């Protein structure tokens, strides 16, 4: 009720001031996903009591001049499998009003924000993963002079339909030297400096330990560009942030350092990246777990695969401690060259490797401490290693070919917290062909094969997979697809699992911004990730219906 009055009061002046008589504009978007669940013992899928589950939401934004207000209605009746059941229900968890006046941008209510790369603060939404850690409070953005941007906020963070207990305060400043200093205006080198500070207040009522009630973190960043070369780096430090409880508490500070260097010109791109993360789990509630109430975001340092089987074993950043590297080369062989052929050929190579810190993350307790070496690769626990090569070539006017090869090592114990004993070594081959039948009719076919190493006499994890996909699209309205994922059977923990097909058919119709998609089939259990954050989805069998729309 308070919020409403506050917003109403704020809106009033705009109603009065609306002298230009333009009524403003409204826009919105809508998304609905539903699935039915049937019992299917072959793939260990279970039915649900509700028969059908659904996730849906709709945004409505109103804009007039410098004023914007918006709401989002969300509904989970009940939440699709794989999403936290705490979402069950419906309501308006997101509403805000925002106006800009003389360069000062004021937001009240909910807002998303990111400082730098997000190492100490990122509030964001990823609806596909059930992540929405939106802030609720006040935010100001102000640019007192050209090239300088200041941001500040005080807010609480969303946790499903409630808020986390912490009060979060943050400020961020970014200075573009070339824009701010007239002497550098025409410099070939461009430099941007930034700094941020975030602090969480949460009461300490621990009966044994003295816990810090205010837990702060700061970060500095720089971005330097000169011609084809660019360098970006950010360093973050977090003060003591024990999780609470009385058995033991770790008072060690946290740090993260991430850097990348790239060279890029027409037809060639080279990227080198490294990061080190130690004890950087920062949340708006002490000791919160899973994806709840995360305040910061450590970008994963591996390639985000788009093909189904290549994304079978995705890596997620371990914010408690890791050391990672990545290198990537993109090269385009020119048209009419020997390798390029008539239309040119694109090649991309990517390598990433992530391991644990020496002896684990930093620890500082009343009885002892441990600080890992800054840099140590050999003999450390390997978390993930991925080498992949991607080739894209237009063969003729009608045919395009994409080929992929991925060789990866996946530490299931660390990444999923499930004991598997040995790292999984998987090799994945993918071929995609696009064939244009007529200008608006295209057939896309994919064949993917995933093969894992053998341990003793058994295949690792779930053994080998093969996948085939045929998709037929008719621009602008229709698509039809049939996909089969086949698992050749495997033995795990003494149990033998039979070979099984996961067959799926789907079709979609779209017109403008309306899109309908209906599917039926079996889905395998798996881990779905965006940007290094993942959710586990159980296997299922049923119909899916998805509708999106925007206006």
């Amino acid at each position, binding site marked *: 009720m308070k919020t409403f009055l506050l917003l109403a009061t704020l809106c009033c002046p705009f109603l009065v001031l609306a002298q230009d008589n333009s009524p403003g504009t409204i826009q919105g978007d809508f998304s609905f996903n539903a699935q039915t669940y049937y019992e299917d013992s072959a793939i260990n899928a279970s039915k649900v009591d509700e028969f059908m589950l659904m996730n849906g939401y709709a945004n409505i934004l109103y804009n007039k001049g410098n004023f914007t207000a918006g709401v989002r209605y969300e509904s989970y009746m009940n939440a699709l499998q794989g999403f*936290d*059941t*705490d979402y069950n229900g419906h309501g308006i968890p997101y509403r805000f009003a925002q106006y800009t006046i003389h360069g*000062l941008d004021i937001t009240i209510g909910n807002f998303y924000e990111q400082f730098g790369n997000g190492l100490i603060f990122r509030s964001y939404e990823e609806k596909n993963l059930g992540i929405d850690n939106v802030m609720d409070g006040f935010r100001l953005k*102000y640019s*007192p002079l050209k090239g300088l941007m*200041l941001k*500040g906020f005080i807010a609480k963070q969303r946790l499903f339909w409630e808020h986390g207990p912490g009060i979060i*305060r*943050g*400020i961020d400043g970014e200075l573009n030297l070339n824009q701010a200093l007239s002497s550098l205006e025409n410099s070939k080198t461009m430099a941007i400096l930034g700094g941020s*500070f975030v*602090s969480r*207040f949460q009461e300490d*009522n*621990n*009966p*044994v*330990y*003295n*816990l*810090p*009630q*205010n*837990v*702060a973190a700061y970060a500095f960043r720089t971005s330097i560009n000169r011609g084809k070369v660019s360098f970006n780096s950010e360093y973050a430090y977090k*003060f*003591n942030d024990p*999780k*609470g*409880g*009385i*058995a*033991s*508490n770790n*008072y060690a500070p946290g740090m993260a350092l991430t850097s990348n260097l790239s060279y890029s010109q027409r037809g060639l791109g080279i990227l080198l990246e490294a990061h080190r993360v130690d004890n950087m789990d920062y949340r708006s509630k*002490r*000791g*919160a*777990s*899973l994806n709840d109430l995360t305040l910061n975001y450590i970008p994963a340092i591996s390639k985000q695969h788009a093909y189904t089987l290549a994304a079978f074993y995705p890596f997620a950043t371990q914010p408690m401690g890791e050391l990672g590297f990545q290198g990537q080369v993109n090269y385009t062989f020119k048209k009419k060259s020997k390798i390029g052929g008539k239309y040119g050929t694109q090649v991309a190579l990517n390598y990433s490797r992530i391991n644990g810190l020496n002896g684990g993350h930093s620890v*500082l*307790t*009343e009885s002892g401490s441990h600080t890992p070496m800054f840099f140590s690769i050999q003999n450390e626990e390997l978390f993930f290693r991925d080498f992949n090569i991607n080739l894209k070539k237009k063969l003729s006017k009608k045919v395009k070919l994409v080929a992929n090869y991925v060789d990866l090592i996946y530490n299931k*114990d*660390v990444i999923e*917290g*499930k*004991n598997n004993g040995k790292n999984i070594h998987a090799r994945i081959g993918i071929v995609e062909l696009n064939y244009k039948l007529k200008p608006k009719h295209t057939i896309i076919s994919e064949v993917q094969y995933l093969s894992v190493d053998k341990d003793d006499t058994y295949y690792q994890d779930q053994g080998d997979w093969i996948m085939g996909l045929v998709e037929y699209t008719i621009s602008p309205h229709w698509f039809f697809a049939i996909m089969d994922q086949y698992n050749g059977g495997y033995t*795990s*923990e*003494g*149990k033998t699992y039979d070979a099984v097909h996961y067959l799926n058919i789907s079709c979609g119709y779209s017109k403008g911004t309306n899109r309908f998609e209906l599917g039926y089939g079996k889905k395998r259990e798996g881990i779905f990730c965006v940007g290094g954050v993942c959710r586990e989805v159980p296997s299922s069998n049923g119909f899916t219906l998805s509708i999106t729309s925007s206006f």
Partner: protein
Amino acid sequence: MKTKLSFILIVLAFLSACDTIEQDDFLQGGTNGSGDTTTVIKKILIEDFTGFRCKNCPDAANELQAIENLYEGKIVGIGVHVGYFATPGGDFTTDFRTDAGEDLDAFFSASLSGLPIGLVNRIGYPNALSQHTDWASTVSDIINQEATVAITISDNGNQISVQAKELSTISGNLKLVVCITEDDIIDKQIVDNSVVNDYEHNHVLRTHLNGTWGTDVSLTNEYTSFDFSYTLDGSWQRSNCHAIAYIYNDSNKEVLQVEKIHLTN
């Protein structure tokens, strides 16, 4: 200009917004929770949802032990092995799951929320789950509350006898649950990504004697007696077993009193 000034003020305010605690001051001095013993003490039930494949669950078990030690005699713990992490397979052959445990898991959505997780007197239902790092704080908030129910238990070898009475008038339907737990079970447990073969499992829930949700009881200000006969499974060590009785309010699921005794040998 004003805006610039206020930004500078905010910056200064922020820079002080951090508490750094020195190593000597991590622990508070003094003692905690030493209440008087002349009246009936309110004891607190902590249910720890756990599993031997759950690598972070030993942290919760240690926390439960530490809370028991801190508030000696006032805490009753139950380790409820549930869900994926407690499912036998491969080297993990023992099945610590129980029917009642699975019911509780489903009702409170424990394993769906990720283990370890637990309940302190089931306070806060339907959002009763809390992480082990929060248990001690919750306990310290309620440890000095006055008891509203008194329970005593006795065991004659094959029958548990529970006496209970109201200390003040309580509205709502009360239910009594009697269960058996076992300590010192040596079995496998994953601790930090490696399998420990001789991990000591304590407070392991073995069985409920009167169903997951117990039996309706109506109490007066005089002790009423409730009897439950039992037999132990051959694989359980009688000398490590306890009988636990707790009474909760069915309207909000909150546990009002809990008591525990060692089974007679």
